[in-house]
């Protein structure tokens, strides 16, 4: 459970989970939403995978990330969004509210 709280404590990782709630996405598609480097995003994905909140699957040449949230974890994520936990960190310039970068062709591969 500790790894889950650690994963949910970061606004970027929460934003990743929020995006994955809509539909599974490739690593490239997710990275487009954050103004951070690929290695940083990979580190975030690793933390989420370690907490068993997301799952990576290979389809063709793409790696797609899917949600693996239990109802309790889903509710926890909802609460953190509802009560704006970590909003201070976002306001301080974290990636949570960052504007998406331009979508580059082939970035999903």
């Amino acid at each position, binding site marked *: 459970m500790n790894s889950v709280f650690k994963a949910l404590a970061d606004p970027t990782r929460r934003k990743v989970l929020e995006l994955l709630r809509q539909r*599974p996405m490739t690593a490239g598609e997710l990275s487009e939403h954050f103004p951070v480097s690929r290695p940083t995003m990979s580190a975030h994905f690793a933390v989420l995978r370690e907490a068993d909140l997301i799952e990576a*699957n290979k*389809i063709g040449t793409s790696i797609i990330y*899917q949600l693996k*949230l*239990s*109802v309790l974890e*889903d509710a926890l994520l909802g609460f953190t969004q509802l009560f704006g936990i970590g909003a201070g960190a976002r306001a301080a310039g974290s990636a949570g509210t960052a504007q998406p970068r331009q979508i580059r062709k082939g970035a999903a591969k």
Partner: protein
Amino acid sequence: MSENLHPRIRKDILLGLKFGMFIIGAALLLTLARRQGWIDAAQLVRAYNVIFGLALAAYCSVIPKMYGPPPRSLHHATLAQASRRVSSWAMTLAFLVWAALWAFAPQELAKIASMIAVGASIAISLGYAVWKSGEFRRSRGG
């Protein structure tokens, strides 16, 4: 269990067996309590149904973490994720309602309403899966 069984399938089976053993253990303890005269028949039924409802709510809450075949496409992954989330939420809430009804409602009402809650959650889960599959087929066809 086969040695070749996928580790996650084995984990899921073990989890199911643990929940089953917990429910059976609780039922045996409650029966013992009844035989000792610590609780009456009505309390036995209520306590058993509350434990049963809470155990199944906990089990259904982890449905999205259970093993599923690797997706063949992004559409397939989207369909699987959405169906699992909806069925997990519907079943978890239904069994929480089951437990709450058996804890607080009059027994006659609890008997009927708890069945309706679980029946509705199954209908929602199946209905959603069928609707999403139809939508998926239409999008592929069109």
